[in-house]
């Protein structure tokens, strides 16, 4: 709570003064508090600016994400110990695994975006075990394969479901489900 960096920290309560659609036109968002901290510690991340709520977003390469996550969790400044959710996002060309992490002590959150490398992303379960079901869900609905996940099975859909329903190009053409058509 009493970190000196707390002053210019983005807070959830205030709406972001500048809407984020302006950010892409600029030459690239400045790294925020966490981005700078990571850069100081030799972990280069891709700053993506704050989102509409003011939470800092960083883009991380798949091979670095475990280190970044470990740093964020173990650092006494960040103390990011609470994984809120893992969301798969389909950008048509590629898929992305988005981690929203919160710190119970400093009340700040961060968003880590990992572009899936051919649908492969390292699992963050060793860092945040809470990722277990969330990653299974993202695998289930987007087909993102989390390497290192001990038990990567379908979670919400039936085990014999064909395809990944939340992908943009998903088409439900399972011949077994013709009865379901209206």
């Amino acid at each position, binding site marked *: 709570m009493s970190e000196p960096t707390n002053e210019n920290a983005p807070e959830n309560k205030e*709406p972001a003064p500048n809407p984020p*659609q302006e950010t892409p036109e600029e030459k690239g968002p400045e790294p925020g508090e966490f981005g700078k901290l990571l850069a100081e510690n030799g972990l280069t991340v891709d700053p993506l600016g704050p*989102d509409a*709520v003011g939470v800092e977003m960083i883009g991380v390469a798949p091979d670095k994400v475990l280190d970044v996550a470990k740093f964020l969790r173990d650092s006494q400044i960040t103390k990011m110990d609470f994984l*809120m959710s893992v969301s798969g*996002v389909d950008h048509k060309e590629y898929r992305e695994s988005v981690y929203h992490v919160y710190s119970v002590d400093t009340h700040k959150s961060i*968003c880590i975006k990992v572009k899936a490398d051919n649908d492969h992303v390292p699992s963050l379960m060793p860092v945040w075990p809470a990722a*277990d079901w*969330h990653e299974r869900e993202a695998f289930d609905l987007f087909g993102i394969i989390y390497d290192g996940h*001990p038990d990567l099975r379908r979670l919400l859909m039936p085990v014999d479901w064909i395809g990944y329903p939340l992908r943009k190009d998903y088409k439900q053409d399972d011949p077994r489900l013709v009865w379901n058509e209206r």
Partner: protein
Amino acid sequence: MTATDVTTPQIQIPGVSVEQDTDTEDLVVNIGPQHPSTHGVLRLITTLNGEVVKEMEAVIGYLHRSKEKMAEGVSYFQYQPTIDRVEYLSSFYDHYAYVTAVEKIAGLKVPKRVEYIRMITMELNRITSHLLWFGTFLLDLGATSPFFYAFRDREEIFKIFEDITGARMMYNYYRFGGLNNDITPGWLDKVRYFCDWFPDRLDEYEAIVNKNPIVMDRTIGLGLIDRELCMKYGVTGPNIRAAGVPMDLRKTNPYCCYDEIEFDVPVGERGDVYDRYIVRMKEMRESLRIIRQAIDKIPGGDAAEVEKLRQAVAAKEEAAKAKAKETGEKPEPVPPINPDFEFKGQKINLMTYKPPAGEAYTTVESPRGLLGCYMISDGTPKAARVKWRGASFSNLAALPELMIGQLYPDLMAIFGSLDVIMPEVDR
């Protein structure tokens, strides 16, 4: 995860060991998907040794209605009614998360009055949700009457909701930057009356349950959740507060107008089932406290008064226009009523409304814990992605570990105390 992965020390009951010496066969019981106390359709594959749980695996997805996929197929406003069904016991919270996500992305300004009404409705909704939990939890323990009492009092709140939203559970009340409709005249008095009436009922509940030796026997020391376990599974809400962690977004990351309100965050000491019960009962009282303050502080006050102001402004405008017509000059600008008193901020066309491109992750402290809505907007009338982070989803993930080594009847106490609701898990 499978139960074999669990490496934490198993919780032992004195006198009962998981590994029995005798040569017995394990009994695999499929609890659910249809079972009276799974609160929906949850399947728990439980391996029992006698009545001691050896392994448990939760199978979910029986209530999966593809709410996230639906968001990508319909417009922002069209999606709103279906949010009610994401978590139907406290759907104001889902609405709030969704609506604020859109508001943040679009930078819409929300009038103060709206925020206060949202706060009152959300806190009332927290009471209904906790009441339902109270009833079903005690029904799981075997007591029947509290269930009916809880439903009786829930009904009172439903009547209050019905007055302003027209619905009892599927409210569809919040709008981007405002509300569907202003509150009705006299509604605040009804809420105030409820706030005065309800504590007596809470006292009755506590007289029936709090010190009942059977309840204490069945709940104290059971299903211990500590901070590490909460972090391990992402357990939130009263469950983490019962473990002594004062994690309450209303306090730590105030949204709405919670920073203008005085309230306490009840925390437990041991993190057992009993503590979770106590924390929820205390939270109901805190909610009443919040509502009382909010009623006093709401800008504009009762709807009838705001209506009077509105009419006065309209009359002035009319008079100015008439005067202008007479004199042939431009009408004098009439000072509008305080924008904080309005129930709608910016006027928007809901049918074609689209926020600009952007993304937001809004979090709300729902009765079950941290509820998150991750929204990506790509500037089209349909959302690119809406992800719901249900509190129950993560809370349920902790159940298999909690149950290892416990007695089968304790399953109902522990599962009930987590306050899991299946539509939020499966979405």
